[in-house]
């Protein structure tokens, strides 16, 4: 990274709210339905229909605002954003421009042990657009197909201040925001399914300069990795352009996942002129202090409160606490496990290590896995009892993860019981020692490695099932007699 330049990033995040129906009509929002089967004359934009606001969508917006330390507007209303595009049948999107429901909030992030507060400019309600299907690419297609199932779904757009100074900070912001939204229970936040979407505004400026550089908006970021990589790419591209004396233009670029580059989509010259104006079809929303208090009372633990609890009450390091509070399902798994097995750090190690590794490899969330907290506890108790070794436990865990079977069942099936019987082990040690006289010599000459060789041979012979503590003890006794 060029040290003479400073990166400036702001994020616009669109969150699909978890309402059962759309924001202005009673159509279902169920994911994955056949095209155009969850559409009514209202969300299809037929003349003569009128929008009626979903109370739950407002409630979720208030909840999100409170979780993000925002001011909740006493009066909020809707405006029309006008543009022509086939995924928008009314030729305008109902959004909130002049009087958004939430503003002036913040959330805290931590990158490389430095805490930082990121400002949230505003959060406003709007309707989602439909989905377009092209034959081939958007430019080569003969025609496009429109599915309006998604059209009219409730979205909350959350706009940050340009407070982030690196791709890592942007990623941390999005991860924290996602955690808060999940804990508040307002969205599923599945980036792959599009219920959490993110655009990044990126610029660079010479260090020390106060005014912002020319800003580029990056679209099509559907993973944390894409967000991080695209910002890194864009910063390099902008610095190179400045160094080469080129003038940067304010434009919208798209992230090309395959080539790992950003590509120009449209410039400011053909920037949209949305001609916002108040939507006369919708009455304003008055939000009373009582309503806010009601929503506030219904809220459960948020990620930062949970983090504090894990550090203060469970004695976990900050790092563990931040990983365990990334999703409510992870925290629930941890909490359930420690009520039955009060060794928080051991449980945390298994979740952060083996469990997260398997989830990543299989591209899964904890709630999609067949593993339950009680089974991890059973496994940990079997290790403590010496029934299996810690090493074998990892094999058993993998099997539990993929089959959902109980640990005892797997141990029995696969014959993985730990061998702690001293007579059995003594017999095996005798054989190995007798078969390797040269290594015995090495050992007597003080070579540390020789001892490890014997342990290794024994583990191999028992397929890792020998009890390591007993092996060590017996082997020491045996070799001291040589």
């Amino acid at each position: 990274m060029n040290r003479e330049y400073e990166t400036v990033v702001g994020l616009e995040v669109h969150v699909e709210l978890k309402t059962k129906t759309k924001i202005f009509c009673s159509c279902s929002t169920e994911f994955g339905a056949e095209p155009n089967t969850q559409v009514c004359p209202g969300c299809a934009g037929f003349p003569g229909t009128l929008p009626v606001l979903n109370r739950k969508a407002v409630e979720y917006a208030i909840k999100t605002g409170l979780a993000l330390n925002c001011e909740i507007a006493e009066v909020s209303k809707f405006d029309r954003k006008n543009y022509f595009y086939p995924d928008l049948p009314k030729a305008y999107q109902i959004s909130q421009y002049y009087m958004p429901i939430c503003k002036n909030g913040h959330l805290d992030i931590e990158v490389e042990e430095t805490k930082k507060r990121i400002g949230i400019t505003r959060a406003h309600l709007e309707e989602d657009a439909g989905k377009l299907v092209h034959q081939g690419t958007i430019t080569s297609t003969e025609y496009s197909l429109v599915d309006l199932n998604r059209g009219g779904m409730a979205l909350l757009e959350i706009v940050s201040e340009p407070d982030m100074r690196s791709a890592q900070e942007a990623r941390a912001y999005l991860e924290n925001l996602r955690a808060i939204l999940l804990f508040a229970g307002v969205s599923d936040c599945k980036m792959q399914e599009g219920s959490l979407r993110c655009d990044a505004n990126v610029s660079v400026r010479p260090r020390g300069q106060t005014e912002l550089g020319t800003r580029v908006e990056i679209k099509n970021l559907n993973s944390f990795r894409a967000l991080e990589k695209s910002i890194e790419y864009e910063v390099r591209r902008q610095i190179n352009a400045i160094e080469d004396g080129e003038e940067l233009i304010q434009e919208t670029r798209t992230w090309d996942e395959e080539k790992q580059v950003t590509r120009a989509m449209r410039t400011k010259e053909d920037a949209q002129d949305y001609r916002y104006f108040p939507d006369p079809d919708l009455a304003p929303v008055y939000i009373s202090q009582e309503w806010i208090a009601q929503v506030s009372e219904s809220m459960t633990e948020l990620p930062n409160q949970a983090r504090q609890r894990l550090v203060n009450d469970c004695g976990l390091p900050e790092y563990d606490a931040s990983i365990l509070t990334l999703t409510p399902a992870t925290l629930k798994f941890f909490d359930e496990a420690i009520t039955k097995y009060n060794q928080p750090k051991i449980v945390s190690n298994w979740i952060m290590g083996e469990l997260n590794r398997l989830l990543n490899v299989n591209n899964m969330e904890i709630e999609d896995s067949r593993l339950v907290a009680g089974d991890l506890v059973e496994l940990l108790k079997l290790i403590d009892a010496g029934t299996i070794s810690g090493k074998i436990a990892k094999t058993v865990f993998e099997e539990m993860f993929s089959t959902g079977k109980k640990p005892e069942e797997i141990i029995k099936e696969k014959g993985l019981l730990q061998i702690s019987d001293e007579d059995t082990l003594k017999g095996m040690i005798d054989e190995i020692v007798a078969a390797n006289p040269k290594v015995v010599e090495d050992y007597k000459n003080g070579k540390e490695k020789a001892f490890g060789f014997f342990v290794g041979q024994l583990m191999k012979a028992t397929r890792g099932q020998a009890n390591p503590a007993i092996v060590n003890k017996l082997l020491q006794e045996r070799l001291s007699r040589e």
Partner: protein
Amino acid sequence: MALTSKEVEHLAILSRLALTDEEKALFAGQMNDILEFADKFNQLDTDNVEPMVYVLPANNVFREDEVIPGPTRDELLTNASAVEEGYFKVPKIL
């Protein structure tokens, strides 16, 4: 604040309208009449007047979050000018 022909052209593009030069002149005149009329509001003293949010004496008009099934797909697509495999079919965009 008379509209220039450039602004009329810009509005025509935003509205996806192809206008002849005669039409541009005609609409520029009509729109200027409208703007002039609306300009009369600027003669009012609104210093201590809160901007009006909504014309009718109504607020908090809500629906509960309950699903009501809509029309079948065939009914929905009845009036579409082109359809393919349950989708609305539209001309290419770019």
